[in-house]
């Protein structure tokens, strides 16, 4: 042994190459390398980048109102995360940016006119009940932003509902007061398709522009931060159901396009339903999730008192996710057909 020990010494000794400190060697289980491009934080930053077109459009359209909602929600989310995490005595988790993402999504899904405390309350509820009580990022069952929004939607129906969608900037002339979907639902008024697509209509501050959501969503899919299966299957399902209703009712395509481009559909399909934490793991599970969400959206839109169904649809499917996961355990390679 003394032989080899001398050799180790020569492999590591400082005399060997003057001025060299002995290397510090550590051990750990394999694999010893990891994909440096991937990280929880990086994913969250991606989501914010993906949301940026929607943010820009909302700031352009709703100016101060959008800014207010964003600032209120982000600040409240960060504060709530900080407080709750401190209360549970867990380590500081703000660095992963997930609270920030929740804040931005919440802010974008607020109507511009909602008073500040609505957004703040939604944030606190979303982070507190939606996330932290489950154990923080990764452990929650429901999308925190949607939990918060559902809470204020029910608690402040007045402030959040159709009445809240004031024509805040005066940029929109076609519809006053009501969002395109509630106008369609309650009054039979239809908004032109191109304003819907570009976003020059009324609605929650970040959800109005379909094109901004599609652009940002494609970026997320390109970055593999969001899966393509969920948005694709939601959109196809909604298009199918709306298309059939369209043909049946003789709307000449307007009904279909309305349901595709109005309201929170694009925003929800690309940014909310794709939240990895609360959606299934496997490709097959994601398709089931997307189809389910799409169906629920249309059921709520067509048959319930709410003109908008994305939020509840996503929450209901979130609850289904563990079940979907256990239905879709993939067959390992080489396993014989059962």
């Amino acid at each position, binding site marked *: 042994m003394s032989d080899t020990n001398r050799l180790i010494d020569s492999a590591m000794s400082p005399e060997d190459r003057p001025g060299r400190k002995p290397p510090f060697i550590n051990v750990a289980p394999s694999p010893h390398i*990891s994909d440096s491009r991937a990280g929880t934080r990086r994913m969250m930053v991606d989501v914010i980048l993906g949301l940026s077109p929607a943010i820009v459009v909302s700031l352009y359209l709703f100016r101060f109102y959008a800014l207010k909602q964003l600032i209120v929600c982000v600040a409240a989310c960060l504060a709530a995360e900080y407080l709750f995490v401190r209360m549970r005595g867990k380590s500081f988790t703000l660095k992963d940016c997930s609270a920030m993402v929740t804040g931005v999504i919440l802010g974008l899904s607020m109507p511009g006119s909602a008073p500040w405390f609505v957004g703040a309350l939604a944030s606190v509820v979303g982070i507190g009940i939606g996330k932290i009580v489950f154990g923080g990022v990764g452990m929650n069952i429901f999308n925190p932003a949607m939990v918060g929004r559902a809470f204020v939607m029910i608690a402040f129906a007045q402030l959040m509902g159709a009445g809240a969608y004031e024509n805040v900037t005066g940029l929109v002339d076609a519809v006053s007061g009501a969002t395109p979907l509630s106008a369609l639902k309650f009054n039979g008024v239809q908004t032109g398709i191109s304003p819907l697509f570009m976003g020059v209509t009324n609605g929650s501050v970040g959800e109005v522009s379909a094109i901004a959501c599609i652009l940002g969503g494609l970026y997320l899919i390109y970055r593999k931060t969001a899966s393509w299966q969920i948005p694709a299957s939601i959109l196809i399902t909604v298009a199918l159901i709306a298309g059939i209703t369209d043909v049946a009712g003789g709307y000449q395509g307007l009904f279909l396009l309305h349901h595709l481009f109005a309201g929170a559909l694009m925003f929800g399909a690309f940014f909310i339903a794709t939240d990895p934490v609360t959606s299934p793991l496997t490709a097959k599970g994601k398709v089931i999730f997307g189809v389910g969400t799409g169906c629920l959206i249309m059921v709520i839109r067509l048959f319930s008192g709410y003109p908008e169904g994305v939020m509840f649809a996503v929450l209901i499917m979130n609850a289904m996710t563990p079940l979907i996961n256990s239905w879709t*355990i993939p067959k390992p390679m*080489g396993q014989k057909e059962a």
Partner: protein
Amino acid sequence: MGLLKLKGFPGTGSFPHGVHPPDNKALSANMAVEVMETPGTVTLPLLQHLGVPSKQIVKSGETVSYGQMVGKGEAFVSASLHAPIAGKVKRNAMVTLPNGRRLEAITIQADGEQIPPERIWEEVTFTQWPKDGFSDHAPMDIVNKIQESGIVGLGGAAFPTHVKVMPNDTRVIDTFVVNGCECEPYLTCDYRLMVEAPDVIVAGALLAARAVSAREIVICVEDNKPEAIKRLQDAARQTVVQVAVVKTKYPQGSEKQLVQAVVGLDIPLGGLPADVGVAVSNVQTIATVARSIVKDVPLTHRVITVSGRGICNPKNIFVPIGVSLAEVVDFCGGLTPNAARIISGGPMMGFAFSDLSAPVTKGTSGLTILTHDDVRKANETNCVRCGRCVDACPMNLVPTKLALAARYKNPEVADRYHIRACVECGSCSYVCPAKLNLVQLIREGKVQLNAWERR
């Protein structure tokens, strides 16, 4: 391109899922194999393979010559050991191998006249290896010779080769797959062998295939090694050996994935390639087979790669089995000051260790020495259920579920999610944005499952 080259094979040249770690092979890919001088001592652990330990057949104080058998593989799944140098047997030592196993080892101190290792290497790179006229070798003779020569899988698993090529009435082997994928990052020893000694590989493939009476013989190389492909194609001209170009993807060199990529068949869970009529063997193993049968020399030397940014001069070296890793590191100029992790094998599946007195064993494919910047960081967060591990797993598992089942000690769930199918390739841990070491948890989960079933 891969698809065209695969003509005649039912596979697609690839397999579902998998990952693309940076291969870092450029560090050593162009370094021609250097021959290491005969060391002063060699240490030969009695268990360098999968199976039953070899039984020592020399006593302390005895003089042994080059190639003499010093340990006998008596059981069927075992392998013999041979002296890589001439010398005197010393008192047995205890060594700790990089995989953590502590074993008794035969120690031989160099003594008397040595065959220059350059001569042995020249024999390997010899270009006139016979490629026909093997019909006078009876299959059973080949198998016996392989067993006698102590040949085991040199790709890393070290499974005794004679067991694989043993003719068997109940299973017919149609295709002999020679694995030249070398999908682990950093390692280039198989690549160098394919470039520098393609003829011995072709000869060995023909011989090994004859042992199992396989009709198809195919050498598989990833498409990032065009030089090796060309050299092998030249060497295989006018023989029945074919060269298949498969897609560069980790873990292409894993047996199941390779068989899927080339033959298009799934090896059943818990099964062997033989279950689908295929035998798989690494290129270096095959080269050793050729030498043992044609030149009648046992397995005593092998090519290893020493690479990574933590070693001064990355190299491919022809070394005697049993030389201490410290000497190997010295031969490559020593560690750099920022070396942080020494790995036996590649960074995806290799073992990290710190005791350089361990010897090179038959299964040592190389040393990868990483610096602090290269090493995966352990700052893990919660699983964000992003599903990337699911998309990476070549076995089509749900690694996150397996890992969580292990963490919460729930072997039932682990079993439901097929934890035993995991080949521990590490792809899931590699991609995980939460930096969870999923494989490590899965390994623990397998242990838990075994314990739970035995209860």
